[in-house]
């Protein structure tokens, strides 16, 4: 109380008595209003942890017994339900297992040669072939039956292919030709190597690139590092950019020249002998040989053994 005033404050359904200056005023308070509506629901909580793994199921029932079926060269000395298998020996009329042998003299028809026996026979066969083993550091070219060492212009942008035979796998490190003594100006010659395709040049082995020919009577060569398997392959030569006077060492068309690897080959009996093949209009990098025609002249192309 202050200033002789008594204040009594009450709320809902109560009476408020406020004495002021020795006077009491009684005021009635109204009734409480209705309750408000409920608020919206809150968001769901986080997912709970995974439960533990269940127990292993029971073992299934035993299956029924199988039956063994045997086909040659397998044989079965047991039964269809209790097999005892083995493999028959092979013969010239029946498949089967064979005993390996290193022999190169056996006449057996029921044994098989080992890789060692094959190599022994292979090495011996080469001693009977009429070709010497190529020597390191020496230049070789296709085997022409006569010298016929002359200078020719040869066809522009024609690739000249010549076969070569090597008795063993050989690695070469140079591919070379010689400009003629009357050469003048500046020309471009491209060289490469091709695989044999049943008697004609086939897939490209190596495009060795080009050389710029600027001088007469000069050997031009490109460094290569190319291993060729034993057998026949082909050299390729093409003067792709003409000089003022085109002159290169090789053969002219003459009946006295022949290629020992090709014999007196020609499409008809002729005094002009096929020394190789030509492919016309080859202006850029080499690709697999195609459009071949026989050639009765070829430039000399040398390979040096590494």
């Amino acid at each position: 109380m202050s200033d002789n005033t008594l204040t009594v404050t009450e709320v809902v359904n109560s009476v408020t008595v406020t004495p002021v200056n020795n006077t009491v005023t009684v005021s009635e308070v109204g009734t409480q209003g209705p309750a408000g509506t409920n608020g919206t629901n809150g968001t769901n909580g986080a997912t709970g942890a995974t439960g533990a793994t269940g127990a292993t199921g029971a073992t299934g029932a035993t299956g029924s017994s199988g039956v063994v079926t045997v086909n040659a060269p397998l044989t079965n000395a047991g039964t269809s339900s209790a097999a005892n298998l083995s493999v028959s020996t092979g013969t010239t009329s029946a498949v089967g297992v064979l005993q390996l042998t290193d022999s190169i003299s056996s006449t057996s028809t029921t044994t098989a040669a080992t890789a060692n026996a094959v190599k022994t026979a292979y090495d011996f066969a080469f001693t009977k072939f009429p070709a010497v083993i190529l020597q390191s550091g020496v230049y070789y070219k296709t085997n022409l039956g006569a010298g016929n060492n002359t200078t020719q212009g040869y066809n522009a942008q024609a690739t000249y292919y010549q076969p070569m035979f090597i008795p063993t796998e050989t690695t070469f490190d140079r591919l070379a030709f010689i400009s003629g003594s009357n050469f003048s100006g500046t020309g471009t010659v491209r060289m490469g190597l091709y695989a044999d395709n049943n008697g004609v040049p086939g897939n490209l082995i190596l495009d060795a690139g080009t050389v710029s020919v600027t001088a007469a009577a000069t050997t031009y060569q490109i460094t290569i590092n190319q291993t060729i398997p034993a057998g026949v392959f082909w050299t390729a030569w093409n003067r792709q950019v003409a000089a003022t006077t085109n002159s290169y060492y090789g053969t002219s068309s003459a009946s006295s020249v022949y290629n020992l690897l090709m014999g007196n080959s020609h499409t008809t009996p002729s005094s002009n002998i096929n020394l190789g093949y030509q492919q016309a209009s080859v202006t850029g990098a080499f690709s697999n040989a195609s459009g071949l025609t026989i050639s009765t002249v070829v430039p000399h192309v040398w390979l040096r053994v590494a």
Partner: protein
Amino acid sequence: MVEGGIMKMITYGIGGYDESKPNNNIVEEIDIPDEEQ
């Protein structure tokens, strides 16, 4: 093979003529005696 007994041998490196390499990729240039004279 070539009259005069001496000829030049010009050797290009692997790949042949190449303007991007020194001396257009010529790696050796020598005079050699002609063995076939």
